[in-house]
């Protein structure tokens, strides 16, 4: 599994020491808040509604058991015994004290973690498929490339003061689980006619105030050209990006203002203008990084596990969990176990210290000490023997971690919203809780089928509501919370931005509105047709009628 190299180690140590000094000077009054704010933000420390919040990077969502235990320790010692896993595959602690922060950063550095590049107009931590290096449908593990990009972009002088923040997502599988079409740059590995693998380069996607689907600037880029080509894109952005207007500064605006053709031409011109890059160093570097991500020593196992099959037959609750939460692994005899952080009526993405420790222990026992964080705010044990799944499930059940709802109505994405976030216009979590309770019944969720309900507490869209099959956006109307519903969004391979269905609802009316939408779907669907497909076929009309027709 990937470990920081010596350079990173020293760098993070230095950064921690620097921040300790900056915090000391701030507390002593030698720095004003205006001077200190950018420094603390660069280290992931925000001031939120109730206290400081520390956002810690989990590069490509990969954590070791040891790191997870350290997060649990930090939550217990310096926070209120829990953390919140976010849609950016980060973790946030909500009750941090400024005076404790240097110690916390040192504790993170002890396990090769940090909070750098979780804020500011830089290239943010690269996100990827939570099943990377495990999924049966994967062409190659995308994390070495994600890591190469991280190393290339970390504190790159040319890209430290971009017009705006910059997010890159990478997927190595044809089924996009990394939402590459709604990132500033999305990279998708695929194969050409000759069977060679290369990258589709998608630019200018994004959510927030102006949600847009990215456009493909290169259909097929050989891997050794990747960094040089990314550099050309960044140059064009640095040159033309709107620094005058915060709301127009993201690359998506540039791409769509110039038009995809013109933007593509600019990038290609910049790319051609560059001296022919030596890619040898880069290839060597990639090989070096890839070694860190070498797959664990899988045992040679039969595909069929009698122990697993017997347990599944004997135990319906286990069978239900397997059906929803277990995914196919490329290695025979192994499986991907998804741990839902969405118990009925729970807070999406929250985990207690005890839960984190249990997951760390279980990963150690069953998954080569490896854990993933998904952008849907769930956890994953990527490499579990099928023989062990029943034991794993039993242990999870005992800790409230065995909700069988992955990808179903109960698996709601919700940002912290007005309960924690200072930018929020309305609460997200209570709405998620109410919907989760209403659709708690497993059979009902199964009947409805694959469904993504995404909730954001303001237009910044951290809950990715635009790409929810059902999106919910909390707004403030004269001091009252109300919620706008969008339908038909998706961040999968056929990405789309959801459309507003009509006037908004008060919070307590949202669950009923969702029920009407889903009843309409159930009434009109064709055999086997999922919600999103049905919506795309039917259009908004029947849903509008169900929601707004006069009774």
């Amino acid at each position, binding site marked *: 599994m990937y470990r920081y190299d010596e350079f990173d180690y020293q760098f993070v140590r230095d950064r921690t020491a620097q921040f300790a000094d900056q915090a000391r000077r*701030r*507390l*002593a*009054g030698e720095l004003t*808040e205006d001077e200190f704010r950018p420094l603390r933000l660069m280290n992931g420390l925000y*001031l*939120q*509604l*109730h*206290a*400081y919040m520390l956002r810690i990077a989990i590069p490509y969502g990969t954590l070791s058991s040891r790191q997870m235990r350290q997060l649990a320790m930090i939550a217990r010692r310096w926070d*209120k015994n829990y953390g919140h896993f976010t849609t950016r595959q980060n973790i946030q602690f909500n*009750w*941090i*004290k*400024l*005076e404790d922060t240097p110690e916390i950063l040192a504790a993170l550095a002890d396990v090769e973690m940090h909070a750098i590049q979780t804020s500011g107009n830089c290239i943010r931590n690269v996100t990827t498929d939570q099943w990377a290096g495990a999924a049966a449908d994967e062409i190659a593990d995308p994390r070495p490339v994600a890591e190469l990009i991280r190393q290339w972009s970390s504190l790159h002088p040319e890209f430290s003061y971009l017009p705006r923040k910059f997010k890159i997502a990478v997927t190595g599988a044809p089924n996009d689980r990394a939402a590459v079409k709604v990132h500033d740059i999305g990279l998708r590995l695929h194969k050409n006619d000759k069977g060679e693998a290369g990258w589709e380069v998608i630019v200018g996607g994004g959510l927030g105030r102006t949600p847009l689907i990215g456009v493909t600037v290169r259909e097929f880029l050989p891997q050794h050209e990747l960094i040089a080509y990314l550099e050309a894109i960044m140059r064009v952005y640095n040159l033309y990006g709107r620094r005058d207007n915060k709301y127009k500064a993201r690359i998506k605006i540039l791409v769509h203002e110039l038009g995809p053709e013109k933007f593509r031409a600019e990038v290609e011109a910049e790319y051609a203008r560059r001296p022919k890059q030596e890619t040898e160093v880069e290839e060597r570097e990639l090989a070096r990084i890839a070694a860190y991500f070498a797959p664990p020593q899988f045992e040679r196992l039969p595909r069929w596990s009698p122990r697993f099959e017997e347990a599944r037959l004997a135990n319906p609750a286990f069978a239900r969990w397997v059906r929803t939460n277990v995914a196919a692994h490329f290695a025979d005899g192994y499986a991907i176990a998804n741990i839902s952080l969405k118990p009925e009526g729970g*807070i999406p993405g929250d985990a207690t210290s005890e839960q984190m420790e249990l997951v760390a222990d279980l990963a150690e026992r069953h998954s080569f000490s490896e854990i993933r964080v998904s952008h849907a705010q769930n956890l994953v044990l990527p490499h579990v023997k099928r023989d062990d799944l029943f034991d794993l499930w039993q242990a999870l059940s005992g800790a409230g971690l065995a909700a069988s709802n992955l990808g179903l109505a109960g698996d709601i994405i919700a940002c912290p919203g*007005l*309960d*924690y976030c200072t930018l*929020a216009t309305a*609460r997200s*979590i*209570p709405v998620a*809780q109410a919907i989760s309770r209403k659709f708690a019944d497993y059979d009902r969720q199964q009947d409805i089928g694959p469904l993504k309900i995404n909730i954001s507490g303001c237009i910044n869209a951290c809950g990715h509501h635009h790409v929810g099959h059902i999106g919910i956006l909390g707004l403030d109307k004269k*001091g*009252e*919370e109300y919620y706008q519903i969008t339908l038909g969004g998706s961040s999968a391979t056929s990405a789309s931005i959801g459309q507003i269905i009509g006037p908004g609802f008060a919070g307590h009316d949202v669950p009923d509105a969702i029920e009407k939408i889903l009843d309409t779907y159930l009434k009109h669907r064709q055999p086997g047709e999922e919600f999103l497909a049905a919506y795309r076929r039917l259009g908004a009309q029947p849903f509008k009628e169900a929601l707004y027709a006069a009774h």
Partner: protein
Amino acid sequence: MSITEKGQAMTANRLRDGAVVFFTRSGDWSEAIDAAVLATEPQAARALESRGKDDERATLVTGVYLFDAERRDGHIRALHIRERIRTLGPTVRLDLGKQAEGLGGAFPAENGG
């Protein structure tokens, strides 16, 4: 019938730990909104604000601002839900924050208080 006084109270985050605090009648900062001084005149509000800026410079607090509030039966209630949540803690974790520490406002965050 109780009398309702309307005005503005001043809040900030305490610098060293980020705790939400309110400016009090005695000129310091309290974690409990009921200790807050309510400025009922624009002039008083301006005076409050300048005290707040002083305390920012003195690195006691950060992010000072005024918010609309009312006093009813001796308790202060923020008019906007955002501020009510700040005076209580998360509405989804009643076991955390001021509401759990006996420092919460006397009105719930949701309407109907």
